[in-house]
Each structure stands twice: as C-alpha cells, then as structure tokens.
C-alpha cells in the first residue's frame, strides 16, 4: 500500500482505519458485532415485553436504534472524532441535518394538518 504509508499526513478515507495490526482490526469488528447484537436483542425484547412501562417503549426503541447506528458508524464504518476524520464527520453532520429536517419537518407539518382538518365525512355532515 504505497498510498497508506503517507496516510498520517492526509485525511483518512471513510471506512479506513488508522494503521492497526490485523488482530486489532478483527477485535474492533468483533466488539462492534457484540454491541450491535446486544442492542438488537434489547430492542426485540423491549418491543415484546410487558415488564416495562408501556408508553416508554417507543422512546426506548428509538434511543436503542440511534445507539446501534452509532455503534455501526464507529466500529464498522470507522467514523471517529480524530483530526484526520474531520471531513467525514462534517459530511455526516450535514447528512444528519437534512435527515432531521426532512423527517422532523414532515411529521410536524402533517400532524398539524391532521389536527386542523376533520375527517372528510364529518366535514360533509357539518356543511350539509
């Protein structure tokens, strides 16, 4: 890898790690897999159980999902906070901004529309 010998002078590519031995890299993936499996199992357990307070379940599922996405980003995609990773993190931050604008904005606007508009059959009854 001729271009990897100078890696530390440059930014690092998304998906690439700083130079580690093969063993360390494999351990990174194993840790990531273990954490992801743990979070997945927790999600499935919480979704099907009566043991926790029911209204907390949707919030818990979303928090677990975000945590698992974080685990994937760090251990599989190797997006870190290191100085050689700034470009990757900035691109990710912009992508997340757009995602939250799209999803949050849509849900917000559409729920207000639903509140302000009665269903069509009631609307017809009111005006006839």
């Amino acid at each position, binding site marked *: 890898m001729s*271009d990897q010998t100078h890696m530390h002078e440059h930014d690092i590519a998304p*998906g690439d790690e700083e130079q580690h031995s093969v063993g360390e890299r494999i351990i990174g993936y194993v840790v*990531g897999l273990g954490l992801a*499996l743990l979070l997945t199992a927790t999600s499935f357990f919480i979704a099907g159980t009566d043991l926790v307070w029911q209204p907390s379940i949707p919030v818990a599922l979303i928090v677990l999902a975000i945590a698992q996405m974080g685990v994937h*980003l760090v251990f599989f995609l190797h997006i870190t906070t290191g100085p050689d990773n700034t470009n990757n993190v900035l*691109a990710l931050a912009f992508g997340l901004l757009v995602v939250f604008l799209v999803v949050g904005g849509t*849900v917000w606007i559409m729920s207000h529309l639903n509140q302000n508009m009665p269903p069509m059959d009631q609307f017809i009854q009111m005006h006839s």
Partner: protein
Amino acid sequence: MAMTATVGHAHADPHHIGLVVEHPGPAPKRTVTAYGFWVFLLSDIVMFSCFFAAYAVLVSQTADGPKGSEIFEQRNVAIETVCLLLSSFTCGMASIAADVRNRFWFYLGMAVTCVLGVIFLVIEFREFADLVSRGYGPSRSAFLTAFFSLVGCHGLHVSAGVLWLLTMMAQVFAKGFRADVLRRMMCFALFWHALDIIWVGVFSVVYLLGSGV
C-alpha cells in the same frame, strides 16, 4: 482552506527560506474515491429519510385494511436482522483480508456475506409474496404503499449489493488485488455497512414500533 493558506504563505516566502510548511498535495486517490462514495451514501440515506417520513405520515391510514401489528411476524424480522448484522461482520473480515492480500479469507468472507444477503432477500421476498397473496398488496392502503416502498427500496439496495459483491469476487479472481479493485472493494464495504444502518432504522421504526401500535 488549508490550500489557500499555504498558497498565501508561498507568496510571502517565494524562496522557501523556511517559513513554508510544504503543502502535502492532493489526497491519495483512495481517500478521494472513498470520500466521494461517502457523500453518495449520505445522499442515499437522505433519500431513505423521505421514505421514512412518508411511512411515518401514512402509517395510520389503513383504509380498513390490516394494521402493522396484524401482518408483521417478529420471528422473521429477527432472523433477517441477524443475517444482515452477521453479513456486515463478514464483509468487514473480507475487507481486512483484501487489505492483507489474502485470497482465501477474502473469498470465504465474501461468500458468507453473499449467502447471508441472499437469505435476507429470500425471507423478505416470501413475506412480500405472502402479503400480496392475502390481498394486502401495495395498492390495498396508503399504509401498505408506504411499507412496500420503504422496505422494498431497502431490498432493492441489498439486491444491488449482492450483484456488486459477486462482481468484486470476479474482479479479484481475474485481476487480483490491484489498487483500483481495492478501492472498489472499500466502496462496496461502505455500501454494505450503510445498508445495515438503514435496516436498523427499518426494523426499529417499521416492525418493532409498528407491532406495538
């Protein structure tokens, strides 16, 4: 920013007396390629977020058809999830093997990834076929339209990923671990891991939240 700063310094010190920190030049092609692909992946995730938004808006518009909790089978979803998660892991093993030029582990990792991806697709296809045969196709209600487009779009991505995976195995077989093949392999690994991230959103939002409603 770094570039303009160094250019400014070069003008200030035209004879390289010693103040200038040499500009390292353009980044290696591996970095540039992967960064471009990373930006593409983020735009792909933005596209998925539109499908997620549509699903969130339409999830209760069942038009007297089935609700999510009546048609989702959590056991199948759990198997699909484990398949994708393990395939992400084996894909990581294959990319390590590619970096150290080990053909055996590369082929093994990619083959296992391929098998797990195909199992995922088969389960998903059978779920879709079962729903359609019961009359719960995408035209039944707005909820089912949103469900089929979101999950189906992810399934299409996985199908494309499996084709790409086979192409990578063929290229390594025919051309060996050349620099350009390794760059493609890195992009494929990014793609596959990103699909797994999207699946985390799908199973949490669609299947697990939906089964409680």
